[in-house]
């Protein structure tokens, strides 16, 4: 009952890939109130090959996980026999040629932030790394408040990005913030088989309700979800939840790659 109501008011962020992904989107929200039966049973192994333009913010439970392997090893048969594998998936945007990225769960693997940053830093240039570290450290203790606007909403909100550790958490918070403003049905007729081509993407974007975007330090408007979370927090100046149609101008990585391939 609760679940139903929630679906109607659900803010769908992102590009619904296909039916399966739509089901994912449904799952966004209070993970605890949703029954576990709404599991990945709809997500068969096709999903793994359909990689995807899904945004991370794609409506999955803020806590979960997503090990694609779960589908493949047949363990996730019943809800109760396996641990939280039934929770929805978070899908990172990824190169269609590679297997889908494993989603990031908060605080997993249990590697301290300091250590995580060490290697990310070593990969980039020293100068940039020093700049990043400095920003990270200076940011601590101060809020990272950014304005959030949603197309059609009467007023803006502000969120402190430091309160969140991952895209799903942010997505969830935004969804709750703006749930009262969502209009239109959340159930669009996606395509059963998702072919990674530009046209299909266009169609989907047209059908999609909302897309989260942000303005980065350079003043460019970017699609949320492409970069690692920490990098996003550093560079995000404001958020805008756009109507899908307007988001077509933004080029998701996959779309670019589509173009390259065809």
């Amino acid at each position, binding site marked *: 009952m609760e679940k139903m109501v929630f679906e109607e008011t659900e803010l769908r962020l992102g590009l619904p890939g296909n039916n399966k992904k739509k089901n994912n989107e449904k799952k966004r929200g*209070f993970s*605890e*109130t949703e029954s576990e039966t709404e599991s990945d049973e709809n997500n068969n192994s096709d999903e793994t090959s359909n990689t995807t333009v899904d945004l991370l913010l794609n409506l999955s439970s803020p*806590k979960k*996980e997503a*090990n694609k*392997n*779960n589908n493949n*090893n*047949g*363990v996730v048969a019943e809800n*109760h*026999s*396996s*641990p*939280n*594998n039934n929770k929805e998936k978070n899908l*990172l945007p*990824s190169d269609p040629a*590679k*297997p889908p*990225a*494993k989603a*990031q*769960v*908060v*605080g*997993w*693997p*249990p*590697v*301290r*932030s*300091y*250590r*995580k940053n*060490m*290697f990310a830093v*070593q990969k980039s240039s*020293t100068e940039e790394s*020093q700049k990043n*570290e*400095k920003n990270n*450290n*200076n940011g*601590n*203790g101060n809020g990272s408040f950014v304005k959030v606007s949603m197309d059609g909403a009467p007023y803006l909100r502000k969120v402190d990005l*430091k*309160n969140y*550790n991952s895209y799903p958490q942010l997505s969830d*918070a935004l969804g*709750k913030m703006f749930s009262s403003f969502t209009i239109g049905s959340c159930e669009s007729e996606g395509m059963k088989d998702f072919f990674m081509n530009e046209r299909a993407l266009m169609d989907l974007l047209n059908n999609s309700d909302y897309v989260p975007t942000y303005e980065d330090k350079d003043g460019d408007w970017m699609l949320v979800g492409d970069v*690692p979370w920490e990098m996003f927090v550093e560079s995000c100046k404001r958020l805008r939840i756009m109507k899908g149609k307007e988001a077509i101008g933004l080029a998701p990585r996959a779309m670019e790659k589509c173009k390259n391939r065809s």
Partner: protein
Amino acid sequence: MECCNKRRMMKESPESNFMNRRGSSCFPDEVLERVIGMLKSRKDRSSVSLVCKEWYNAERWSRRNVFIGNCYSVSPEILTRRFPNIRSVTLKGKPRFSDFNLVPANWGADIHFWLVVFAEKYPFLEELRLKRMTVTDESLKFLARSFPNFKAISLQNCDGFSTDGLAAIAADCKNLTELDIQENVIDDKNDNWLTCFPESFTSLEVLNFSILHNDVNFDALEKLVTRCKSLKTLKLNKSITLEQLQRLLFRAPQLCELGTGSFSQELTTQQYTELEGAFSNCKNLNTLSGLWVVTPQYLPVLYPACANLTFLNFSYAPLDSDDIAKLLVHCANIRRLWVVDTIEDKGLEAVGTHCPLLEELRVFPADPFAEGDARGVTDSGFIAVSQGCRNLHYVLYFCRHMTNAAVATVVQNCPDFTHFRLCIMNPGQPDYRTSEPMDEAFGAVVKTCSKLQRLAISGLLTDLTFEYIGKYAKNLETLSVAFAGSSDWGMQCVLEGCPKLRKLEIRDCPFGNAALLSGLEKYESMRSLWMSDCKVTMNGCRLLAKEMPRLNVEVIKEDGSDDSQAERVYVYRSVAGPRRDAPPFVLTL
């Protein structure tokens, strides 16, 4: 016997009256205190204090060090009332999962109020060791001016301060011997805090500023190192170049522990030779760490110093298997080795071959979030190490998949594990050869390693793992669980079966109220319980709080989440009652 005779003989004397009045103890307080004062072990002191009132008092007056594993389990008032003469305090604050962002900022564990009480009750305080506490610059400044005898400060995984605080310590702690800043969240203001050590200051023995990322004033550092002749531990930060390192080593050949700076710079032949010479001059070096940004062709300068090394911390140096193999040839005495998984299985084979005395191995992931087929270490590397290093008793191993058979082989080779922490980085990952759960792996661990004190489990695990743990892990004190188990029964097995359990931390497991409440009797004998993203509800927590008033049952509420669920629960025993400083998102039930 003799003392009793003395009592009879001296019956008439005032002394004997005194002794008779004092009851069972025949020794004057001072003697008893002297004797008990020699006890160093916390456990012994604890036992001693339970014998009788005299011994309790002698113990509390003679105690100089105190260790508080959970800062909220006791208050500074209670502490100072019982132990009036403390010189050294060790405090741990936040739950361990705060290291992984599972505890919101501003949760608490602020040292300040403790310091205020200490300033009054322990004016002769010498040492403060903090882990996972919030420490502000104001607190550090307060500390620097409140304790004239202050000698040693060690901050690990703390947050809230900047280099301003360090400057205050440097300037005002005239007797400082130790400044150890490890893995903290610190605001490096790129100021010259090092210059704040006065010219007359020479007592430093331990200096660790490795986590700072800005340049330090090298001139001040070199002068400091030169005049502190007792310096034993020096851990530099990345900004220190190889050339600067050589100059420092030249000044301090007596060093026992060295953390290098960045290990990459264009060196001339002469500089290279000088650096090599500097290392061979350090005859006492037993610990080596740092080595950020390593240029592998400079590693040979370390070789002369390797023979005496017992602890090699390469956990920030992503070497490959060849580099590590060439180095380890010289490191036959290594007892503790921390590496990055870039060395891969081949590198671990080298470990097994060249380091037979190894007792502790930690393998960290270079890229924990790598997509697709990332490299790293696997089951075969694990086995290789266990074959060559039979003394291994501590392992922390990050890998992407594992097999039950490999773990069974490892513990067969090394049955003396006291700490077994296996992190299969994909949640719910089964045995990749058999596709079965990893239950048998951990079953083998607990069955074989009777001395096991600490266990961290991962991979696809059913209740069977927990049955094994409850049945066999009788010495287990710390258990870390994530994405595991099938039902409440799992957690119950552990709570009922592990008599020495002190710390239980659980995340993302299907354990609910029944499991939580099955430990009702148990939690008072434990330091703490952490459960996050399990199936515990607020009602379950309220029930626990009601039944066990001496426990603090705290729920961390996320904004806008379901009110009936208790997403993050932290339960711990306390004699101090509920927290007085809880932020609004922490509900004490």
